[in-house]
């Protein structure tokens, strides 16, 4: 009896320490959370100030007067409308292309037997590790030879193919039970119909992961577009945002730059919140896979 009371007491004590710990962890998580959110909040808050508010000392967080016109002013200050269109077009084309080529090849690697298959796959895996820094110069010279410099092809076509995505598709498709396919084959389905009707629907989660990763990467991509897209008409959003802040002015118009940053960042944030499940799962599954 005495023992039982003791046990109860110690359990109660444990519960209390857990509650206390939880509280402590919440406090720490919140502080870190504020640090993470702060730059975004600072960006949005300042996107509504005027130039006087920006250079005011000491700085204040909430704008005195809210200048919504900063957004229209920033939008028209440079070709952000064309930039949006270019970015959307490039992202859509690359996502679509990668999903198609990676899933087709993934199916081929995972399910069909033919001479050389495993050797080709090994080649894919080994070249996956080549850093993009190494490709910049040869690829640029190639683009010049194709006459693609300052055209959208230069940022679309080379990226319609993905060894990494192909690898991911192959690994996912290998886990699909063969029986499903065999049944379809016995019913007289050809390889393409099997791929289209059986494999693709089952691969949806992996396809979604690939699509979201590719979208975010393409939308955010800076270095390669910086190299191949020189003419204003073909520039994508990151390029415009970067050059927007380097335009010489007596006093850097930070309020407009922050407004521009806000409307460039928001689409990606929305894409993330909508597709978070797939994005997180993608990182986790490929992460664990990659870790061996």
């Amino acid at each position: 009896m005495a023992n039982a009371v003791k046990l109860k007491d110690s359990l109660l004590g444990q519960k209390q320490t857990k509650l206390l710990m939880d509280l402590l962890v919440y406090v720490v998580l919140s502080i870190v959370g504020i640090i993470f959110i702060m730059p975004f909040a600072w960006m949005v808050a300042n996107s509504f100030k005027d130039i006087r508010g920006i250079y005011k000392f000491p700085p204040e967080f909430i704008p005195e007067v809210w200048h919504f016109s900063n957004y229209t002013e920033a939008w028209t200050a440079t070709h952000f409308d064309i930039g949006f269109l270019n970015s959307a077009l490039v992202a859509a084309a690359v996502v679509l292309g990668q999903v198609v080529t990676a899933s087709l090849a993934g199916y081929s690697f995972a399910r069909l037997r033919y001479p050389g298959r495993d050797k080709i796959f090994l080649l894919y895996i080994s070249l996956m590790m080549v850093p993009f820094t190494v490709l910049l110069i040869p690829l640029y010279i190639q683009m010049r030879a194709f006459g693609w410099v300052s055209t959208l092809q230069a940022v679309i076509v080379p990226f319609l193919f993905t060894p990494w995505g192909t690898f991911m598709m192959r690994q996912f498709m290998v886990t699909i039970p063969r029986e499903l396919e065999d049944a379809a084959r016995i019913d007289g389905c050809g390889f393409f119909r099997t791929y289209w009707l059986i494999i693709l629907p089952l691969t949806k989660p992996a396809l979604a992961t690939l699509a979201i990763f590719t979208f975010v990467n393409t939308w955010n991509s800076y270095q390669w577009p910086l190299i191949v897209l020189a003419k204003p008409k073909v520039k994508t959003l990151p390029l415009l945002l970067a050059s927007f802040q380097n335009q010489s002015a007596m006093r850097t118009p930070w309020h407009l730059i922050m407004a521009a940053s806000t409307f460039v960042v928001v689409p990606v944030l929305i894409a993330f919140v909508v597709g978070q499940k797939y994005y997180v799962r993608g990182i986790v599954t490929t992460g664990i896979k990659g870790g061996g």
Partner: protein
Amino acid sequence: MTANLAGGGGHARKLGVLEEVRRAFTGLRRGETIAGYLFLAPNFIGFIIFLLFPICFAFYIMLTDWSLAKPPAFVGLENFETMVNDRLFWKSLGNSFYYTFVAVPTGIFIAFWLALALNRKMRGIIFFRTIYFLPQITLTVAAATIWRWIYQPEIGMINHMLDWFGIDGPKWIHDTQWAMPSVIIMSNWQGIGFAMLILLAGLQGIPEEYYEAASIDGASGWQRMRYVTLPMLTPALFFVVVTSLIGAFQSFDQFFVLTQGGPAHATTPLTLYIFQNAFTFFKMGYGAALASVVFVIILIITIVQWRLARRWVIGFENDDE
């Protein structure tokens, strides 16, 4: 890995290659062989044109003097001789190492504690996870733009906040000593979400029973961490370390936007130096030679990590497919 790959064609191994090919294109297997190549074709053609060929081409370019205005002149290993005597090459190489080997350990250290905190069974964890991850998906150009302003010595947020505590903040990105730490802080703010997520998944994969067993044996919180959490987390840690090192060594955007490599080349990493040589001075050959250094270093990091992993990653041999 290779054992797994060979799964499909194992029984054909004993036949000669030609015989294998002949059989693949006749009889029952014919349809499958043709379908296999057709499904692979679009991907493989792109792979050859935009990956395999440029890589091989790079090996030629680095042996030339090529400004693009004139045809390339073959110069052998001259670019590498130039490199050895190039003070800025060594400076940028040093910067790349400085950045990589400070940013990665500090980032993973913070990510580890965040992941531990998020692994508790509490409400609202997903909310915090989302917040910590938001900078990760923000485009680096925008992130660097925001931070460039936060770092402004007079009107920036950081020095303003330091001022509350009576601290006279440094000039951050405008100071040779502080520029690199500034880039590192910004990069970690942006990149921690990734490491945190992988480590969190690793923590969630540790079976509850291990902790229970350790508790019954009287293990303290610290001991459970030392003998259960850390060893079980080694595969996830390993993955995070490798990918972060490789990623950090290739960083470009934040340097280009936040500091433009300055002041006085204090934040010019190898990637930026390559970019300047190739696309500002149009020295394609020298740029390609510099890029080969990045390639070799990443290869070495990968190999060293895999070697070390055999020693310290629990279950590494077994998990190696």
